C-alpha cells in the first residue's frame, strides 16, 4: 500500500469508508469525519476508552496498548489514539458510536462571563435541530491551528435551553496553554464553522421528584442551566436549591438569569457563594467555601438528591459534606472521570 498522504481509507463495519491522512492517529482520523470515540485521557493511551476492534491493518502494538488492553489484544482490540495511520485499515465499531455522529454548526455569538470564562453560542446547520437531555455534553472538535498541529476533541456540557433546538450554548473556561480552550478563545471567529458530536453522557435529573441540591463550581454551572430551563418549562416538578460557588464576586456569572429562575420555577432557590469578598466589592450573599455553606443551610439531606458539577476538588469536598448530612451515595449524581 502506498500513495499520497490522503489516500488511505478506514473501512468501518464493512460499509462505511473514511479517508485518512498518513501519520494521523485513528482517533483523530475518525473524529475529523464525525465518528467520536469516547476518551477520557486526551488521547494519551491511558484511559482505554477509545478501544476499537481492528480487523485489518493498524501497525505494531504499543506498550500502552498492551498494558491497557490486556487480553483484549488477542481479540483484535487496539487503542485508536495509539494507532498511527500508515495504510488502509478495517475496523468494527458498535452502532451506537456511529450514531454519535457529527454535528455541523456555526459559531454565532460569544458573551464574556468572567475574566476567563465565556458563553459560546453555536447555531446548528446539519442537522438543523437537535434534542438532548439536560446534563449531557458534546465533544467539540478543535482543528489543527498554530497551538496544536493535530486535531483534538474536548467535552463541554450543554448550557442552553433544550427547547431551543437549533442552538447549543457552552460555558468554556480558559485553561492556561490548554489546546482547545486557547483555540476557542483566541482563534475561533464568529461565523466560523465548527464540528461537534451529538450530545452524550449519563449525567441528568433522575425521574424521582425528590427535592434536590445542585452544587456548581466554575464552568460546572453549564449543565444546571440546561436543567433549570427544563424545570422552568414544567418538564418536572421538584424543589431545587442551586449553590453556585466562586472565588470572588467577579467569578460569578449569569446572576440575573439565575435569579430569574426563582420566579419561573416553583420551589427554586438560588444561593451564590463567594469564598472571598475583596475590598470595595458589594456583596451581601453567602461567604465561604460552597461546601461549608451547604452545612449552614441544611441539617439533614437524607430525603434529597445531590447533583454536582465542577472542579474535582469541589466534587470530593461536596461528596463528604452531602454524605455527612445523611444523603445516601446512590442519591448523589456527578460525571465520573
Amino acid at each position, binding site marked *: 500500500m502506498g500513495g499520497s498522504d490522503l489516500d488511505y481509507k478506514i473501512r468501518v463495519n464493512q460499509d462505511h469508508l473514511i479517508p485518512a491522512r498518513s*501519520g494521523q*492517529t485513528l482517533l483523530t482520523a475518525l473524529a475529523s469525519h464525525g465518528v467520536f470515540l469516547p476518551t*477520557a*485521557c*486526551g*488521547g*494519551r*493511551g*491511558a*484511559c482505554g476508552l477509545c478501544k476499537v476492534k481492528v480487523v485489518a491493518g493498524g501497525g505494531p502494538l*504499543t*506498550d*500502552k496498548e*498492551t*498494558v*491497557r488492553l490486556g487480553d483484549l489484544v488477542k481479540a483484535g482490540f487496539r487503542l485508536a489514539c*495509539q494507532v*498511527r495511520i500508515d495504510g488502509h485499515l478495517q475496523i468494527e465499531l458498535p452502532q451506537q458510536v456511529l450514531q454519535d455522529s457529527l454535528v455541523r454548526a456555526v459559531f454565532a455569538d460569544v458573551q464574556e462571563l468572567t475574566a476567563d470564562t465565556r458563553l459560546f453560542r453555536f447555531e446548528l446547520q446539519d442537522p438543523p435541530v437537535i434534542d438532548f437531555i439536560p446534563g449531557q455534553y458534546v465533544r467539540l472538535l478543535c482543528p489543527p491551528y498554530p497551538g*496544536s*498541529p*493535530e486535531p*483534538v476533541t*474536548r*467535552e463541554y456540557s450543554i448550557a442552553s435551553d433544550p427547547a431551543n433546538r437549533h442552538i447549543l450554548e457552552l460555558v468554556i*473556561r480558559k*485553561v*492556561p*496553554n*490548554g*489546546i482547545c480552550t486557547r483555540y476557542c478563545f483566541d482563534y475561533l471567529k464568529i461565523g466560523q464553522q465548527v464540528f461537534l458530536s451529538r450530545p452524550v453522557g449519563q449525567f441528568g435529573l433522575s425521574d424521582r421528584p425528590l427535592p434536590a441540591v445542585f452544587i456548581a*463550581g*466554575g*464552568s*460546572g454551572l453549564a449543565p444546571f442551566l440546561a436543567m433549570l430551563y427544563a424545570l422552568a418549562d414544567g418538564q418536572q416538578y421538584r424543589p431545587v436549591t442551586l449553590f453556585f*460557588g466562586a*472565588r470572588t464576586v467577579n467569578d460569578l456569572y449569569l446572576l440575573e438569569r439565575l435569579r430569574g429562575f426563582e420566579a419561573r420555577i416553583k420551589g427554586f432557590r438560588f444561593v451564590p457563594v463567594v*469564598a*472571598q469578598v475583596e475590598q470595595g466589592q458589594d456583596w451581601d450573599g453567602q461567604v465561604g*467555601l*460552597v*461546601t461549608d455553606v451547604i452545612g449552614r443551610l441544611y441539617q439533614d439531606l437524607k430525603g434529597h438528591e445531590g447533583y454536582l*458539577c*465542577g*472542579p*474535582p*476538588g*469541589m466534587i470530593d*469536598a461536596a461528596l463528604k459534606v452531602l454524605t455527612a448530612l445523611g444523603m445516601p451515595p446512590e442519591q448523589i449524581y456527578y*460525571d465520573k*472521570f
Partner: protein
Amino acid sequence: MSQDPDLLGKVELSLRSSPALSTSFLGKDHRPVAEIIAADAATLARLGITATDLAKRMQGLAAIARQNLEVPVVVGRIEVYCQQWKGRIGCPWPGCGLFDKTVTVARHLDKGIAASWTDLNMHLIAEHGFFEGIGSPFRVEPQVLVQLLA
C-alpha cells in the same frame, strides 16, 4: 531514579511520532528524552535535592491548595492556589494512569519568585524525573522550583 533505556526509547518514539504530543511535552527541544532528564537531574544534583524530594514539596502544597478549592492560602511564606478543570490527562509513559487537569500556582511572598505546575508535572517529576522539553508550554524549570520551595 533509575531509567530503563528501552522504556525511554519507546516513550521517545511515542512522543516524537505525534506532533501534538511532541509540541506539548518536548516543545522545540530536539534532545532525546533521556538527555533532557539527565540534564535536569544534573541541575538538581548541583542544587542538592532529588526530583523525588522536590516533587514531594510540590505535592504537599498542591494538596493544601486543592483542599482550599480555588482560594489562595498562605503556607509558610508561600501563597498557593489551584485551578481545576473537568477531564483527565494521561502520562506519556505506559501504565501510569490519569491525572486531573489541575494547575497549582505558587508565589513566594518575600523572594518574589513564582511558579505554576500541573498534576501531571508532579507525576512526571516524581516518577520519571521529567520536567519536559525546553519550549514546552508546561515545562517547569528545576532551579526556579528549588528557589521557590527550598
